[in-house]
């Protein structure tokens, strides 16, 4: 087992820069997800670690061994592909044993490893079948089994669940988490699905246009996004943004105001800051943190354009008076209706502030949230957080 270190990795396709200066330090035994919209470079980064892409600059270190220039087979890794990449003309046993038998592993040992992997994945009774005779979930297991028999130091998984239907995806997600716990090996997981990333990972790398936007635990990403991109990407429905003016009120407090807001909001900071640019600030607030209040208490006002009732909550889409669209979530079946005029209040403890460069100011978190984040940082392994969705 080993951690992974990536230093200043650059990758270009022709003139197009896909990865520019990626630095990561992944701990031994960690489950890390690469998360981002399509085209952000997450799969390319994974394939660079695997050695399937040549990189233009940088280094990849696995354990204490630099593997940047090694052939894929020599890197002590295993990879699970999105479309499984099973050899269709071989049965499951051959699929699992093919690589081993060509690398001079004794037959008895191959058999032991295959049977062991099959037992872990509960596919022992399928060993004689061909991939065509398997269901999607079974194929996925075989693909993972092919990685397990290699007994690698690092597992690379490229959107392994995206070809499965929704129900099966949830089951396989739990199985993957259990597998990680059982094997204790470092795993890197590429996905565009934030629920997968948030539930499976110890830490998540959010990638934006070939750069690391943030590398942190799932709750850190959610409660303390470091920039506008992460704030807007994590969480569904998306965080709302408003342009505001910000002034420093002492070293640890920022007062938000400006044309868009009625009144002001004082947001406490975690770390004292000495200077603040006056213009170009953005207030961010998640839809479920907004409160519906009476007109005189409100910071902004708007009109309901759509109500989506999901039972436990209702998503209410609004047009603010300045024309901007805005989403809020109300508990249960709050009696708002189409066309109604509503008044919104932004509780200070839920407000995120971003400067003109899109970087977050370090806001103070309440004790409960902070301890939640700290606990997640410390826990390693136990990542099955049930099956929301």
């Amino acid at each position, binding site marked *: 087992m080993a951690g992974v270190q990536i230093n200043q990795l650059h990758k270009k396709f022709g003139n197009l820069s896909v990865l520019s200066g990626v630095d990561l330090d992944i701990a031994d035994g960690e489950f890390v997800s690469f998360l981002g919209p399509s085209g952000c470079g997450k799969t390319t980064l994974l394939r660079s670690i*695997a*050695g*399937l892409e040549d990189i233009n600059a940088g280094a990849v270190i696995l354990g204490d061994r630099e593997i940047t220039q090694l*052939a*894929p*087979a*020599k890197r002590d*890794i*295993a*990879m699970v*592909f999105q*479309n499984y*990449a099973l*050899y*269709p*003309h071989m049965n499951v046993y051959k699929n699992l044993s*093919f*690589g*081993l038998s*060509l*690398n001079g592993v004794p037959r008895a040992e191959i058999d032991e490893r295959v049977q062991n992997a099959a037992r872990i994945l509960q596919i022992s009774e399928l060993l004689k079948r061909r*991939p*065509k005779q*398997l*269901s*999607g*979930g*079974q194929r*996925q*297991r075989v693909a993972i089994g*092919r990685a397990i028999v*290699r007994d690698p130091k690092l597992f690379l998984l490229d959107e392994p669940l995206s*070809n*499965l*239907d929704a*129900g*099966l995806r949830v089951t396989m997600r739990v199985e993957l988490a259990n597998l990680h716990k059982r094997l204790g090996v470092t795993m890197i997981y590429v996905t565009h699905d934030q629920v997968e990333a948030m539930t499976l990972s110890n830490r998540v790398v959010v990638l934006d246009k070939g750069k690391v936007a943030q590398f942190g635990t799932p709750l850190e990403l959610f409660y303390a996004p470091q920039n506008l991109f992460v704030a807007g990407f994590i969480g569904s429905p998306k965080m709302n943004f408003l342009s505001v003016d910000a002034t420093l009120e002492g070293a640890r407090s920022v007062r938000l105001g400006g044309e868009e807001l009625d009144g002001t909001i004082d947001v406490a900071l975690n770390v004292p800051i000495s200077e603040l640019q006056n213009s170009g600030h953005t207030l961010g607030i998640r839809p479920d943190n907004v409160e519906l209040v009476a007109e005189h208490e409100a910071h902004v006002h708007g009109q309901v354009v759509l109500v989506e009732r999901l039972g436990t909550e209702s998503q209410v889409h609004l047009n603010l008076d300045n024309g901007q669209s805005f989403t809020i979530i109300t508990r249960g079946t709050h009696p708002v209706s189409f066309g109604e005029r509503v008044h919104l209040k932004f509780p200070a403890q839920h407000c995120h502030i971003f400067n003109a460069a899109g970087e977050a100011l370090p806001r103070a978190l309440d004790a409960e949230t902070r301890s939640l984040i700290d606990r997640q940082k410390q826990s390693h392994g136990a990542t099955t957080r049930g099956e929301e969705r």
Partner: protein
Amino acid sequence: MGTDPDSAVQRNRFFEKLTPYLFISPWILGFLFFTLGPLIFSLVMSFYDWPVVGERTFVGVDNYRVMLTEDPLFWDSLWVTIKFGLFFVPFNIILGLLLAVLLNQKVLGSGIFRTIFYLPSVISGVALVTIWAWIYSHEYGILNFLLGLAGIEGPNWLGDPSWSLLAIVVASLWGLGGTMLILLTGLQSIPKELYEAAKISGVPAWARLVFITIPMLSPMLLFTFITSIIAAFQQLTIALLLTGGGPLESTYFFAMYIYDNAFQYFEMGFAAANSWVMFLIILALSMLVMKSSSAWVYYEGEMKNKEQADG
């Protein structure tokens, strides 16, 4: 109203069903008159003594009997054809596969090479033969000239019975562009991930070719195997124009035997019987290959229609 509505409806329905056949009728008529008709006609002919001019007489299976028991040329030409096929079929497939694998690499100008390798398949047979006649020529051929530079005295390729068949095999292989193209399309339809997964598992390049490429390509290999056998049996143009069947009938192919019986000796009935024997041989060989295919051909249909059944 006088008309019966029921029969009108039925008439409409009949025409509705007929319409598609009317649309493809030019092809149906062409097939009936120019393919199926002559085919059956030739079968009938094969039971007759059928000179081009003069009396036709029904002779029963006499043509077949004479061919199989009295005409040594039948067996000789068949043997020449089989020898030719034994060289031509494997070389056509193996060289076609090697070229396809080479052209499938991502190298600069692979498009140009693809065109160059296919070019001979486009050239007319006669032009091709003329080129090869010059290459093989005993006195002024480029092949013997080049051999001479290396200090080797080249044989009389087309005049020496021990070399002539081989010379024709090589000239025929000039047209393996078609085989190459079929195999190349096959190669390009193999999912790249299979190779990537194999690379990560440490499978060496030769094993990727033997255990992944060839099995995945087997349906195309089967197809080219059968078409190569058929091409070998129908070999006529090159031999006819290059050697005329000589020397000492060393390149006297079965197709040439049929050709001579029909257009030199005007024994149309006999030639028709020859053709049917050739047809049966090709049919038997093809069926044999098809039968063997269940053991070595893998039909994919798996990676493409990703069935997403539940586990």
